[in-house]
Structures are given as structure tokens and as C-alpha cells.
């Protein structure tokens, strides 16, 4: 199928038909008027022929809608640039060899779900022995020492542990968030690390389904890992970043003069 990458539209059952479904709740009782309101809302969102296919009262004062419509918008995918984590991904064996030869000691990692988040699934997948999708977690790597502190860890406690064990990297996971509290929480951790004078001594890494690398860097992190990240991705990044910073130590501070 020939797809014009400059005009990508949803595919229902024929190219470019634009079909989408969405569901939402309006804070008014279900009626002919509220159904129409839902359709108008769909149209305002750029859905042609927005049709309510299901509506139902929730608790007398709310109404739930499922809507289908044809999206009139298209996206030019050729202009999209997403900053990606700066690393060449290596497999398990290669990462270990890399650390052995380039760093020459075990890398220490401290990980936790911080703040409000009780969902350890992400951090467990990256750290725990068992790993994720058939890949071992960092605990299993002979050249990593990993501490998984679990969920709802306070930023102060996470940093304390990192200092205690002389960690090379701090991994924070933020899975479920509400009203963007993860932003405040991640900001606080970055501030804490900086204020403690540790920012140049430790890699700060964040992961989670709503975390982009871009956001992570903006908040002061070295890397942000989104959905689908495997332990080897994180392992590769940490190993290479540490090797790089070890090399940087030997470079002059002022950098290279281009004048």
C-alpha cells in the first residue's frame, strides 16, 4: 500500500477514510440534546459525520458516549523529529563486555518508583532478575549491582540510598500520575540532586509510559525512557554515558575554540 507520509490519516477499512472512535463523559444527563452536544463536540474536534453509537446515563447527572467519526485532519510525518536517547543499543553479553573493558568495575544502579506512584511494574521489568519480554533485568547482569527500592519512595530516601552505595545512576519510574504530579516530583528530585552537589556524580534517568526523552532532558535528567523500553536499552545507555563522562574528565574545560 502506498502511503503519502506527508498526509497520514486514520485507516478504518479503506485508505484515508479517517475513521476514529472515542468515548467520553459529559456532566449533563443523557438526552437527545446531550447526544447532539456530543456529536457537535466531535465535529469541533475535526470529526466529520460524528455519530453517537452508544450513550448511557451515569448516575443521573452524567452521560457516557461512544462516538465514531471521520477525522478530517492529516499529519505530515516527514516533519516529526523526536529526540532519542543517545546510545547504541547492545545485547546483554556485549554490555557486560563493554563495562568490563571500558569501565573496569561494576556499575551501581539505584531504582525506585517515587512519590505517589505504587506501580512498580516498569522498574521491576528493568531491574529484577526475571526481566521483561524474555530479557533479563539489570540484577542479572554480572557487571551491574542494582538496588530496587520499590514503590512510593521519597526522593530524599532515593538519593540517600544512591549516596550510601555510591551509585553511578539513579533510575526513577513514574507510571500512573494524576494532574501531572509526576512533573513536580521529578523536578523535586532533580533539584535535590543538584542541591546536594551530586548532579555531576550520578546519572539521572527516568522512565514511564508518559515520559519522553525530551521532557526528561528539560527537567534536568540525562535520559527519559518511554514505553517498550527493555533492560538492555537502559543498560546500554548507562554504560556508554559513564564511559563518555570518564573520557570527558580528561578534556579541557573550555572546549574547542572555533574562532
Amino acid at each position, binding site marked *: 500500500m502506498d502511503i503519502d507520509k506527508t498526509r497520514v490519516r486514520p485507516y478504518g477499512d479503506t485508505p484515508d477514510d479517517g475513521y476514529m472512535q472515542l468515548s467520553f463523559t459529559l456532566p449533563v444527563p443523557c438526552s437527545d440534546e446531550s447526544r447532539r452536544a456530543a456529536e457537535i463536540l466531535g465535529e469541533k474536534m475535526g470529526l466529520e459525520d460524528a455519530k453517537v453509537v452508544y450513550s448511557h446515563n451515569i448516575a443521573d447527572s452524567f452521560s457516557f458516549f461512544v462516538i465514531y467519526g471521520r477525522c478530517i485532519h492529516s499529519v505530515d510525518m516527514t516533519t516529526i523529529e523526536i529526540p532519542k536517547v543517545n546510545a547504541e543499543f547492545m545485547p546483554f553479553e556485549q554490555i557486560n563486555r563493554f563495562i568490563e573493558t571500558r569501565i573496569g568495575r561494576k556499575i551501581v544502579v539505584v531504582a525506585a518508583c517515587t512519590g505517589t506512584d505504587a506501580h512498580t511494574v516498569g522498574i521491576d521489568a528493568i531491574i529484577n532478575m526475571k526481566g521483561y519480554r524474555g530479557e533479563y533485568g539489570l540484577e542479572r547482569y554480572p557487571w551491574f549491582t542494582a538496588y530496587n527500592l520499590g514503590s512510593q519512595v521519597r526522593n530524599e530516601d532515593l538519593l540517600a540510598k544512591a549516596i550510601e552505595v555510591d551509585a553511578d545512576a539513579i533510575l526513577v519510574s513514574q507510571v500512573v500520575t494524576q494532574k501531572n504530579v509526576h512533573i*513536580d516530583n521529578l523536578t523535586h528530585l532533580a533539584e535535590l540532586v543538584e542541591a546536594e552537589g551530586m548532579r555531576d556524580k550520578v546519572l539521572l534517568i527516568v522512565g514511564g509510559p508518559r515520559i519522553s526523552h525530551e521532557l526528561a532532558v528539560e527537567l534536568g535528567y540525562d535520559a527519559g525512557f518511554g514505553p517498550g523500553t527493555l533492560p538492555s536499552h537502559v543498560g546500554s545507555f548507562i554504560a556508554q554515558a559513564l564511559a563518555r563522562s570518564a573520557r570527558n574528565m580528561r578534556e579541557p574545560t573550555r572546549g574547542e*575554540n572555533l*574562532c
Partner: protein
Amino acid sequence: MNPSVSSAKTAAELGRDDTMQLADIVISSGARNIAVIGLAKNTGKTVALNAIIKGVQASGIRIGVASSGRDGERLDAVTNLPKPRITLQKGVLVATTEELAMNATASLEPLIKTKYVSVLGRLIIYRVSAPGTIEVASGNRASVVKNTTQIMRHLGAELVLIDGAAGRRFSSAPSLADAVILSTGAVVAPTLDGVVARTAHAVEILSTEEWSSPHREDLNPKTLTNQDIVIITSDAVGKQVQNLKVKSVLVSISEIVRRLPGSGNTLILGGVLPGSLLRDLVTHRKAHGSTVVVSDATRILATYRDIALFKSRGGKIAVFHEVHLAAITTSPISPDGRMFKADTLLDAVAKRVRPIPVIDVIAGTARNLPGHDKTQEDKTEGGGVA
């Protein structure tokens, strides 16, 4: 602070736009490194930065622009909403990465290639050779920001502007900036009272006063690291200075509290001041008359609640180096569509932070301007008619 009253008046008379006052405040502060920080994302930092750039460029001062986050990007990384762009005139120095420079409409001449590589490419100092927009990202940690501003100064920048990242405050440290602009706005809290309270709390923390004590001469703050915890006790017997040497205050809070002989002593922290330390001092009745000293206000990472509790029990917090808060900007609009009446927010914030100048960067109105005391008082009482 020695504001130039005449220049402030002139700017106010020439244009109706009081945002130009920001540049005047910046220039008259005599500061060479100015940090613009925000209480959160979307508080109008970039708008404030643009106003300063515009005003300072007009005055002929050579400026350098750096960002500790990312500025002038097209879309917000969280809300995906459009953001204000940054436009630079010829001659301005700017620190940004290779990749972002490629997308700039401004023409750029590379001057120095730094050793720093971020996700967005290598950090380079450019000179603008033809005006246009540009996205600025110059490194997200203190050491990089410090190095970058030093290089720009070395290359001839007379005034370096450091834009902050999201809600981060580290760039306001006196080691990086000698004056600070704080941005606040509707996005900070759902209610007007909430915005005003949070702003006032942040101002209170940022304005923490210098430690003035005869003991100060015993210590060189520059030599302190996060492993230094110094306890100074003075009683009838005399003065005693003791350095505990720990791995970090965070690891040793209970030990520190235990080793503090009682209330009324001074505790100097080489690193961060965490909330749990303040709470523990209160719990163990060691707050009264005690002073906790840190390098500067960016080291205070306790919540306002913890600080207020500590202070209410007779504790004091002081710094070696004060932050100079030159102005506050307000934005009455939040990206989720919430909006306050501009003057209501401006007046409410101005009243709480007096005498710090407050400028609404969206409406272009100002309060607490130096030399405008009388008029501004009238304005406030008259309901803040611009």
C-alpha cells in the same frame, strides 16, 4: 539594589507596555548574569525572557542567551500546546545545540564547541549573524550552565540571560546568577489564593537572609561539600565548632539530630536542607533558637509546611549567599484554559511580595515599580485599572 528611577519612568511613559520595565529592572540592577525561573511550566518564563531580550538589545548592551531547560520550542513537551518563540537580533551570543541550531531561522556563526553533548547534540556557543527565531537548550545542570555563561562572558557578553527549566530553581543560585526574575501564574494552583500563597512561599524561601554571625569567619563556605555538617555550639564555657563529616545529610539525619546538643545551636550544611531534617529537629525539640545555614536558597528543598513549622518553633534558616530577587512576573492564563482577571492576580501577588516589582507579562501592567509608589498605591486601591 539601586534602581535607576529615571529610566523606569521613561519606559513607562513611552509605551503603554509595562513589560518593558523588566528590561529596565534588569539593566538597573547592575547584574551580569540574570536567571529567569518559574514556579512551574507555563508560567510565562519565555514571554518574560523575550521582553528582557527585546529591551536589553534595544539599549545596545551585548547579551548572551542560555537556557537550563529548553526554550522557544514549538510545542510544549507535556501539553503539546504552541509556545512563544525566541527571536534574537544580530550580535547576540547564544548557547544551544548543533541540532537545534540547524532548525533556527536566525543565521548563526559558531564560536566555541563545548565538551558537552546532550540528546539534542553538542552544545555550541553561536553569534547571531542575521536575526531570526531559535530554540535554546544549553545544558540542564548547574556545572554546565556555569561553564557556558563563563564562556559567553569571555566572548564579550555584557549581560547573560539564563532561562530556567520548567519549575526548576537551581539556576537562581548566586553562583550562577546575580539577579533573579521569578515567573508565576494561573497554572500554579486552581485558585487565586492558592497561586498567591505558593508564590509568596517561594519568595519567602528565595529571600532567605544571609547568615550574619561572628562565627562566620570560622568557615569558608567554598570549601564545604555535602559531606560537611558543622555544628557550632556556644555556651557559658565558650564556643565549639565541630565538623561531623558524613556521607550526606540525607543518610545521617538521625545522627545529626542526636549529636546536636540541644536547642539554640547553629547547624551548617554543605549540601541540601531536606524537610525531614527540619521535622526531626522539631520533633526532638531542637528547633528553638537554632539556625540552619546552607550555601544559598536553592539548597532549601523542604516543603513550605516543614519550613513554617520549624520557624514557628523558633528555628531560623540562613544562607551564606543571598539570592537577589529583582522582579516577579505573573501570567493570568493557564494552558488548560483557566484564567484569572489579570489585575486581580497582579494586585494580589504585588501586595504579598512588596516591595518586589511585579509585572504581568501578558497584559503588560506592573506594580511595586521603584519610584512609582504613590501611583501604584492608588491603582491598587482603585481596583487596579491599567
